[in-house]
Every structure is written in C-alpha cells, then in structure tokens.
C-alpha cells in the first residue's frame, strides 16, 4: 500500500535547516487530530463543567475561558498545522479544490474571530421614554424628573419647596376630546405638592400638550370644581425625551466617585475582581449562621485612579472583600451599654403556617404587634410583674360636665356595635352614643407616634357626629358632616371635641404579654373566656399557649445594639438567574482619621441619582466616604461605562401580542418594538425601529432589543416606561461569514463534486486502457490527501 500523503514528499536532497525542521513538525495530520482532540477537551471542560473555570484560582467567565492563552495557543497551533499540511501535502489541483477551500475557510474564520473577539465591546443601557421638565417663574434653570412611577424630586423656588412625584403612567390613554376620538397617548400623572394649598395631580399627555389637565384628589377634574383646567398656571410641566448617553460594559466592574453635591460620576475601573467565589478575610465582617464553616480567602485589590481624576485624587482605593450573593442585614447584638430589651419569636398557627416577629420593649412604636395581639414589656423584678396592671379589656371613660355624670364602659364585643347597632343613651342628658370600631396602636407617620382610638358616634339634640376618641386626650377630634366611614374621602371637617361630653379611651393590654425581667422571660396570657395562664419561657422552646397557637422565643437580648452586616445567602436560596445582581464589595479608603471601610452593594447601572431607582429593576445604592479635605465623597459600585457615539432617545415602545393580548405571560407576546432616535449633528434622526431579531446599526454600534418594562402588580400603571437595549460592535463579522461560506462550499465540492470528477477520470482511463476490471490508481489520483487510495 502506498501512503497517499507522502506522495509529494520533499526531495531528499533538500537542506534541513531549523526553519525547515520546525515546518516539518507541523506537517502532520496526526498533530492536527491531537490538537482537535485537545480543543474538544478544552471546550468540554469550559462548557459542561463550569466549576473548573469558576475555581477561585481561575475565576473566569465563559468568555474569559475561551480567550485564555492556552485556548489561543491551541487554536493558533491548529491553524499553523492546517496551513502547513495544506501547503505541503495537498497538491493544488482541481480535484483538491474542496479541501483547499475548506482549510482556507477555517483559517479565514479564525482570523476573523481574532479580529472580532479582540475588539469586541458589548454592553447594555436602559433608555427611558420621557422626562418631565419643570419650569416656574423664579427658577434659575428648569428642573427635570425621569418618568418612572415612584420617582420624585423637589424644587426650591425662593423660600418655597415644591414636591413632584410620578404617580402613574399609562401607555394607552384614550383621548376623548372632540376631533381626536380613538387616538391614544402615553399619559403621565405627576403628583404636585405645592408649598401652600392642596396637593393636586397634573396629567400630561405625550404629543398632546393642549390637553394638560389638573385633577384634585377626591374632587375630580379641576375644570369641574375650579372652573379652570390648571390649578396653577405658573407651573409649567412638559414631557420631553430622556436621552441616554452612555452604556455599561457586560461582565465588568467599576467604582463611580463624586463629591457630595456634584452631579457627574467619575469612573474608576476595577481590574481583577473575582466573580464567582466569595473573598472574605474575617468571619466578623459578615453574619453567617450556617453549620459548614465559612471558607476564608482574603483579597487586597488596589483600585488605581482611572483616566479622569476623581475626588480621591491619586489615592488608591482598596477592595478587601467580595461577596457573590448577599444582602445587608440589620441585626441585633447584645452588649450595649443601655437597657434595650428585644425579643424575636415565632408563632405557629393551627394550619401549619409559621411567622417570625420582633418586638422592642422600650420603643412605643415597636412594642406591640400591628393588631395588638402580642406585647413586649420590661420589668425590673419578678415582683414588678405581679404588680403590672394587665387588663385585657379596653375602657371608654365618659364624662358629662353639665350633670357631673361620669362612668366607664368596657369596650368589647358587646359594646362595639358598629353602624347598625343601637345608640345607648347617656343618663340624665339628651345625648346618646354608640361605639363604631376600635383601632389599637395605629402608627401615625407624621410625628405623634402611636395612638389607639375608638370611633364613637354621638347623637345630640342638634344632630349627630363621629368622635375619634384617642388614648391621648389632645388627639381626640370630632368629625362633623361626616358619613361616618373614616376611610371614605369626603369633605368632612375635623375639629376640637364638643365640650358638652368628654371621653377618654384606655386600650386594653394584649392578650399575650411577654415580660422580660433580669432573670428571664415570662409570658402572661389573659383573654376573655379563657383561663389566665403564666408561662416561664426559655429561648428555643415551643410553648402551646392555646389550641392552635404555639409560640417559640428565638432570641432575647436585654442590651441590644443594632448592627448592619452583609448576610451571605445560602446557595439553595439564591435566584439562579440573579448572576451578580446581589454582589457586594468592601471598599477601604484612607481618611485623615485612619482607614474607613464600607460595604458597597452592586448596581446594574451607575444612575445619576435616586430619582432613577425603580424597585425591582434599577437600584441606586451608594456609600459616603470622608475626604482628606474635609468634604465627603459618594461612591457607587457598578460596571464600566462607555460613551455612546450618538445619544439615544426612545420615541415609543410597543408590545405586539398574540391572541388575547398580554396577560402576564411572555407566551402571549409576539414581539417587542422600540422606536429610537439618535442624536446626529445636533438633530434627532427619524425614528429607527428595532425589535427582537431586527437590530439597527448607527455610528459604529449595533443596537438590539434586550429587555423591557413589564406591567407589574403594585406598580402604578401599564409599565413600558423604558426599553433595555443591548449595544455592541461587530468588527470582522463579515470576515467570519466569508470564511464559513468558503468552508461550506469546499465541503460540498470535496464530498460530492470530487467523487464525480474522480469517477469520470476512472472511466476515461478504463476506456483508454480498453480493458475492464478495476482501475489502477495513477499518479494524478494518488497524492490527494483526502484520497489515500489503497490498492
């Protein structure tokens, strides 16, 4: 048998220099097979066994693994091998055109890929749909507010402060005005709180500035109650584009720094930060309560100043810890100097559900559960517990100054009759009353703390009114002209209590009272229709208080201090798709009084300020660091940022749906369409439509539809207030494509054209020889690499 590959061996007389020997080293099909097998192994490990590339020693993303030098070397050797073997073993003849084309194609593809991946920039950016421009006489420059439900800002004009908040948005607000029937517009409701006067809502319609209207809460359109469309004609709110000028690079890290008061972030890229494994040098830095030990691996990564000088100047910052998935946790720790008893307990109900609660004895706002069922107190001694006034029944104390009558009414299921019950006359007077409802421990957000109230309807000879009787007499109010329902908005007026009859309300204690004392914890149970009981509680023990209710004290601290530490989330509770969204670093900076270290939580984007925080989507979490000059810097942890060649504005965003529209599931969505304008030469271009699978290129970058803003329960409005774009370049993609096309054409030639050529040649030869039987292979056929003809 003749080895087909050796047919065109070099003449034996040729000189064998070192270059020649090197070339001969690559002149081997077996070497190619070995290199291909190694590539197979390398690819398999990187892809199927990601733990390998995620090892603490490697910390590589898929992209990094496939651009690691061993891979590059393998591919380079493979290409050299292909080139040498092709040149030296496969004669450039018509029959071999296929192999030559395939090999040329593969080498072209590889070169294209080096160009492509070597210059690849890939990132993403949200583009907000609109922002509200706020203009008022006396403002130095107009204010702005990005349109995201919940976003708010305040504007100071002279001595006055105006507050603006985006209340809700609607993408399909039907316009009812004559001449525009059937049209819809993007509507934005802005809640305006003026320094004086009542708050109102201004509705802005995108594209229809003539239809701006104000709405007064509880009264409806301003034109109905005030006779004019706008409450305040001086305040001008308008909608305009909210251009995006930067994007963030995928899988990168950076710090963003500015002095407090500045508006522009300055970027400091972080190189070499791990991604997959926690780096933490000390257990004290985190709260960690799992059985397996926390592996300690420390880092001390210096973050040198970026290209633009920032507030820290030349001072390097140091990253001393990295957590892949953690959240900041507020925890109680014993060891404070002051008495501050805190209890954590869980209650298990009959149907198996269990909930955890926390109460603080000396904090009036947090010493009772919302519904008042459980209360936590402190007693200096056991004797003090015995003396504690514990009465489960609330009392309503009534006095009539005119007759000097005074009596107590127990407030319980029998006396709280509601709006359908009978009035009880107050003896000796023309008055009668009925108790409507009781609310204990209402938290008043403004200032007065906690208040317990009884709503009492009082009938007098000249009409009836509802009185809110509070446990603090100064808060008791009468509501006249009232429908009686405290929740119904109405134009009732609240005023001082009618002095002809005075009332005080004393709430009852909770049926369950935990009392901490220096020697331990006691639980007192006292409830209507049940035997009072006392339990001495031990932390960790479950006690059945009554059928269907068990309590367990999880922790009891008497001198509790609060501390904030990251809590590492156990693997099982991590959202698989969260990636680094919940990662954080510990950043250390030098200050005049020594180093300051703080935990920084990751932000997907370095948003300019808190107005851009959008729950569940965009975070804005930064920390403050003191600077040597006495000022304070803000630092935010996010990804590297690049300028866009052309700022982008979102004209509108549309959802194309299947049958039945969007019903909360992506299976109903056919396409997402963003219409974008680019700022080119100071002018906005005509809208470019991009949708899934239909990107658009502009100014050297390609823009892809990536994410969207779905309507969410709880969020005000229909969502779709921004679009998420993928942004990237694609140098060399046509070289890659050309290489691929070459190799496909080559394969077709080699597999299907070449045998035909060969067969014809065989037939011709047979005809020439004039004899039947098998055709002998001739020189022309031997020596073709894919044709190792054995005879």
């Amino acid at each position, binding site marked *: *048998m003749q080895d*087909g*590959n050796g047919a065109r061996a070099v003449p034996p007389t040729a000189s064998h220099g070192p270059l020649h020997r090197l070339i001969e080293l690559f002149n081997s*099909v077996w070497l*190619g*097979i070995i290199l*291909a097998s190694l590539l*197979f192994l390398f*690819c*398999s490990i*990187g*892809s*199927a*066994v990601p*733990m390998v590339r995620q090892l603490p020693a490697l910390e590589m993303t*898929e*992209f990094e*693994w*496939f651009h690691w030098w061993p891979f590059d070397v393998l591919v380079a050797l493979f290409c050299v091998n292909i080139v040498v073997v092709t040149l030296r073993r496969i004669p450039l003849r018509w029959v071999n055109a296929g192999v030559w084309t395939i090999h040329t194609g593969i080498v072209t593809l590889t070169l294209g890929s080096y160009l*492509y991946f070597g210059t*690849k920039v890939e990132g993403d950016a949200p583009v907000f749909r609109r922002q509200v421009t706020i203009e008022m006489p006396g403002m130095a420059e107009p204010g702005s507010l990005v349109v995201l439900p919940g976003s708010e800002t305040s504007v100071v004009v002279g001595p006055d402060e105006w507050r603006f908040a985006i209340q809700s948005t609607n993408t399909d607000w039907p316009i009812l005005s004559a001449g525009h029937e059937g049209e819809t517009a993007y509507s934005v409701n802005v809640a305006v709180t003026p320094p004086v006067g009542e708050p109102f809502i201004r509705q802005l319609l995108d594209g229809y500035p003539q239809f701006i209207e104000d709405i007064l809460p509880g009264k409806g359109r301003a034109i109905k109650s005030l006779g004019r469309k706008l409450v305040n004609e001086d305040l001008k709110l308008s909608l305009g584009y909210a251009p995006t000028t930067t994007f963030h690079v995928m899988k990168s890290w950076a710090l963003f720094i500015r002095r407090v008061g500045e508006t522009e972030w300055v970027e400091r890229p972080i190189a070499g930060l791990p991604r997959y494994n926690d780096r933490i040098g000390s257990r004290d830095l985190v709260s960690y309560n799992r059985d397996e030990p926390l592996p300690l691996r420390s880092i001390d990564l210096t973050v040198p100043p970026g290209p633009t000088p920032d507030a820290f100047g030349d001072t390097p910052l140091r990253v001393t810890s990295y957590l892949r998935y953690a959240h900041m946790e507020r925890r109680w720790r014993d060891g404070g100097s002051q008495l501050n008893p805190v209890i954590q307990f869980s209650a298990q109900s009959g149907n*198996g*559900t269990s909930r955890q609660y926390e109460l603080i004895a000396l904090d009036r706002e947090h010493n009772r559960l919302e519904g008042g069922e459980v209360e936590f107190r402190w007693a200096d001694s056991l004797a003090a517990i015995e003396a504690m006034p514990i009465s489960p029944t609330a009392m309503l104390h009534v006095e009539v100054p005119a007759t000097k009558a005074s009596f107590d009414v127990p407030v319980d299921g029998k006396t709280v009759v509601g709006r359908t019950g009978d009035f009880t006359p107050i003896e000796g007077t023309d008055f009668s009353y009925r108790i409507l409802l009781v609310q204990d421990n209402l938290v008043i957000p403004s200032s007065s703390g906690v208040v317990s109230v009884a709503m009492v309807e009082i009938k007098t000879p000249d009409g009836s009114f509802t009185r809110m009787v509070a446990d603090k007499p100064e808060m008791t109010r009468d509501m006249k002209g009232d429908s009686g329902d405290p929740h119904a908005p109405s134009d009732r007026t609240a005023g001082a209590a009618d002095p002809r009859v005075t009332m005080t309300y004393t709430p009852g204690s909770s049926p369950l009272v935990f009392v901490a004392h220096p020697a331990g914890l006691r639980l007192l149970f006292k409830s209507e229709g049940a035997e009072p009981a006392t339990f001495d509680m031990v932390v960790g023990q479950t006690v059945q208080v009554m059928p269907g209710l068990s309590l367990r004290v999880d922790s009891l601290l008497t001198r509790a201090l609060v501390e904030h530490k990251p809590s590492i989330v156990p693997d*099982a*509770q991590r959202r*698989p798709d969260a990636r680094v969204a919940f990662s954080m670093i510990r950043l250390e900076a030098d200050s005049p009084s020594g180093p300051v270290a703080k935990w920084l939580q990751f932000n997907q984007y370095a948003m300019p300020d808190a107005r851009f925080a959008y729950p569940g989507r965009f975070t804005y979490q930064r920390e403050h660091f003191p600077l040597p000059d006495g000022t304070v810097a803000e630092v935010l942890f996010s990804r590297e940022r690049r300028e866009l060649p052309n700022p982008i504005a979102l004209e509108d965003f549309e959802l194309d*749906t*299947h*049958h*039945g*529209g969007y*019903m909360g599931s*992506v*299976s*109903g969505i*056919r396409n*997402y369409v963003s219409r974008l304008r680019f700022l080119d030469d100071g002018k906005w271009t005509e809208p470019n439509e991009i949708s*899934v*699978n*239909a*990107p658009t290129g502009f100014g050297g970058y*390609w823009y*892809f539809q990536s994410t969207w803003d779905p309507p969410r329960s709880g969020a005000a409005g229909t969502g779709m207030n921004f679009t998420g774009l*993928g942004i*990237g370049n694609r140098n060399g*993609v046509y070289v*890659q494509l050309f290489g*691929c096309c070459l190799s*496909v054409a080559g*394969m077709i030639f080699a*597999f299907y054209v070449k*045998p035909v050529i*060969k067969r014809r040649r065989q*037939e011709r030869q047979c*005809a020439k020889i*004039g004899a*039947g039987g098998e055709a002998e292979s001739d020189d022309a056929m031997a020596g073709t690499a*894919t044709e*190792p003809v*054995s005879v």
Partner: protein
Amino acid sequence: MNGKIRIRLIDVMVLLAIAGGVGYGMVMRPPSTESPSSAFMSEVDLTPLYATAVQADGRLRSFESHAKTYMGYIAGPRVVNGQSHGYSYLDLLFRPEAYTDTDIIFVKNKLVLGRILNVLEEDPRLDAGRLAAIRKSRLIAPSLLNEPEVKALLNVLGRDLIRTSKPVDMINSALFVSQPQFLGENLKLVAPDDATPETQWVSVMHIESMGGAPQDAAHAGMSGGSIPGVSTELQGNLAKAWSGLRNAWRSQDAATVNTHATTVAQLVRSSAAELYPSQSRLSMESWYFRYKGMTWVWLVYLASALPLLMAVIYKWKGARRLGIGLFVFAFLLQSASVGIRWYISGRWPNANMFEAVTTAAWFGGVGALLIEWFARKTPFRNVFALGSAVMSMIALMAAYYLPVYLDSSISNKMAALNDIWLYIHTNVIIWSYAVIGLACVPALLLLRQRWCLSWDNGSIPKWRLLILPIAIVALNYTAYAILMHFIAREKYGLQGYALYANVSALWASLIFVSLEGFAAAARTRAGVRPERSASGGASALMSSAPTSSRFLQPERPTTGQVFDGATMVLVEVAFIMLWAGTVMGAIWADHSWGRPWGWDPKEVFALNTFIIFLILLHVRLKVRDKAFHTAILAVVGFQVMLFNWIAVNFVITGLHSYA
C-alpha cells in the same frame, strides 16, 4: 463473508438488554388507572364541544387541546380515571367535591413525594394499597396535600430554590388550577362582537354568573347586567344553556348534557364569525390530542425495522418490499402527524422539545428516502431506511413514553424565535442530528459484524469477546453518571457507595476497553488485512453503482463495506449540515443577541460534535482499518450530539433551552 450472518450471541445479548430495559419501563409505568367508568361517562358525548375554540395562552385552541394542557398542569402526564381530558375538565368544574379525595395532583419530583408521604404516614386514609398506588402513579389527592403538616412541609421545601422550590411551585399551581373557579374563569369561549385578535374573550363562567342580561327595565339592576360586546340575547341563551349543562352534569343526566353541549357549541360559534377558527381545524386539534399526538406511529416503525433488518442482512427481496412498504407507510403517517400539527398550530412544528424531536425524526425519514432513491440499485439500499426507521422509532417512543419531558402541548413561539434564519438554522440542525442518528445505525451494525468475525475466527478468546460489550456499556454509563455528578451535583449527585462503585467501574471498564483496543491495533499491525474502504460515502456509492462505461464494472462490496459506505454517506451529509446549520445559527445570533458566537454550552457542544466528525474524517486518512475507526467515531459523535441535545438542554441551562 456474505450470507454468513445469522442471529448471534451478541444479538441475543443486545435484544435481551433492550427487552429488559423496555420491559422494566413498561412494568414500572403506572397503570392507566382503573376506570370506574360510569354509564354517564360513556353516554356523554362531548363531540360538539371538541369543535369549539378556547382563547388561552395567546392561542385559539380547541376545547380538548385546552383541557389537555390544563389537565397536564394538574395530573401531569397521567389520565384521570381513564377519562378524556375534556371530560375530566368539565367534571372538575361541575363536581369538584368528587375530586377532593381522589388522587389527581401529579407530583413529579420523587424526593418531594417521598417527604410528603413520610409526613402522612399516620394518616388513616392511606392504606398500603393506596400508598403503593400513589408511589407508582405519583398522583395524590388535594385533600392530602391540604393537610396542615403537608402544607408546613411544602413551605419549608419551597424555600430551597435549587432543589425543591420548583416542584413545590408545581404542586401549588396544580392545586390552584384544579379549583373550579380557575377552570371556569379560563374557559374563555365567547368572542365579543367587535373582537380583534387582541381582544380578550369572555369566559362562560362570567356569563353564567352575570345571568341572563336584563331584558326589560324592571329587572335592570337585579341580575348582573350586560357584558360589553356580547349581545343580550346571546348572553341570556348561553347563561341558560351553560347552567343547564351544569345542572344536568351534576345530576348525571347524559341526554340533557348532550343537548346543552350542542346548544353551547352552536351559541359560541355565532359571535365573531370571521375570527373563529374553522370547525375542521378545531375538531382535528381535539382528535390529535385525544390520540396522543400520533406518537404511537413508533409501532409502525418498529414493524418496518424488522423486515428491513432482514433485508439488509439476508438480502431478501420480499423482506425489502415489505420493509420499505411499511417504512413508507409509517413515514406517511408521521408526515400526516407533522402536517396536522402544522395545520392546527399555524406554524411549522419546531418550537419546543417535543416538536424538535418528532420533526427531526421526520427529517431523518425525508433524508433516508432521498438517499434510498439514489442508492436503489446499489448494495447500500435498505440501510438508510433501516437507520431512519430505528431512529424515528426511538424518537417517537421517547415522545410516547416521556410526556413529562416532551410535552406535546402546542404553544406560541417565543418572540426571539420568529426569524427566518433561526427557522432555517433550527431545522437544518435537527435534520443534521437526525442524520447523525441515522449514521449510528450502520456503524453499530459494522461493529457487530466485526465482533461476529472475531468470534468465528477465534482470534480472540471468547470470554474477552463476551466481556467487551458489557465493558463498553459500563464505560458509557459510568462516565455519564460521573460527568453528571460533577455537572449537576444537586440533582444527579452520586452518594457514598454509588460514587465509589461508579468510579471503580469506570476505571475497570476503561482499562479493559483500552487493553482490547491495543490488542486490536497489534493484530492489525501483525498483518490482519482489513477490508478495503472507499475514500468517502459518495465514492462508495458511486463505485458500486451501475455505470454507463462498458469498461468499468460496478464493484460488489462486502457487507462490511456496505455498512462503512452507508455510515460515510450519512456522516458527510451530517458534517455539512451541522456546520452550515451552526453558521446559520451564528448569523441569527448576530442580529438577535448581538454576537454570532457567545460560548454558550449549546454552541460549544455543537462545535464539539463537529470536532468529533472532523477527527473522524482525518483519522480515516491515516489508519489502515478505516471502517472500524469510522464506526467507533460515528457512535461517539452520536453520543456527543445526544449529550448536547439532552444533558445540555435539561441540565446545563443555556440560551438555547427552548429548542
């Protein structure tokens, strides 16, 4: 060499292993539940409802199709009491009380089911028989799941996001879906008058609860009022018919049920006529789902594979005629099933795993028939049909027996999948997968033939020949088990002895197989002359095809050469299609994701499969016994492809997990 092939020990071993595996699967399959089929059930005729459309999941689907999807959420792949899905749906809707203590909720995860049953150990309702039935069918009654202890357990398990939260979510959603309120609200049968495709349809439950619309002013405000877009007349009639249906169903009056069902079907068709799907489409959809998506065609493929095997081995003309006839018949049936699916879903069926597998099998059939036509006068005939019959049979069996993994419900394509390049890409790729599968069949036949030759000529001790196939299977199995242990320890982790046993078996089999490999190489070097192989598949076909030249006679290839040539024909096709398909995928990815290649596991393993075939082609250039090495590498390539399709899809999450 020719004609010497007969049923050998190895065939018996392989057949026994397959029979054992399939038999085990059959025995362990849950019984299709004993049906306490009442007279009512057999008399109820839901045919009119089968031709009504329900708006759900962004589609207008037939009632039976809708019921199948929803019952799938509840009972998984199981059939409740041997009832049709439509019947079960209405029974759950009208007589929910009959099901509170019936085992209808499917618990897919065995671990979760085990924990639930542990908690319920003391429950008096669970006697040994019922416990065994639950373990087997994995169906459990809602009343048992609503026990406080079980609720508490599910609460705890739901917090483990990696292992058990998904199964617990599935149980909770099954409980939720099985509520009559939910079933009723989602039975959106009525299109409003001026409906556009985006308009939401109205559920019959809504219409029933609103009652007849007020016909006169005196009653206005008493009943529920009118529903926008639904004429008062229709609303009234439908409410009447539906409550009639409900009452008749509750009193188990089949005749009245049938009357009302007909009325309801007529009424719902009367609105939005131009939007309403045709009656034939809906009936066909219902028919398709009542007959398991025609996956039973695997039996016809099985019937064709046997005579085709005989035709390949014994070269019997009669076997060829019968085999090819049956194969064509099976292929036509499968074409019909693909066509029906295309017709009822309104798009080419290649959007989920079920469709990918069955359509790939169909593509394999198309390819095999084409090549069979070209090779009809060569000794290679029948091999391609045989390969296709075996692969289609396996694919359809998988769809038939593993409905949990291959869900046949029709859904809309995800937005990202609406693209012409992607369309071509996925179809070319699954076609290449099918051809890789096909190539594996002659490769295995060649390996079997080599084994038999060694057995006959006694060149290798027989005990070694007996151990060899076992060692190869063990090597495959243990390597896979250990790989999965590392890839997805949470789910497929081996514990304790299992790990040690697998590792030892892996090493033992690896050592044995490599020793055999070295011995074989030594024998080849020592002068055992392998068969001459053609340089490629097309050359092999051509050199044995009749030629117009008077001087060149077609060669009579040996059986080994036939298998080798057939493998190469298929490998070459697969090679080009896999490469071209991957390139098309890159073109799509470039404009969909912004990068042609993202080193995603699915992409990398497509490249890996390609590398294996690339190695195959070049190893063929360099070794003497080309046929043998080609066969080995063709099987390896098939395994890498399967790993890409199954393990990467189901275990290693990637961007491609939807296809």
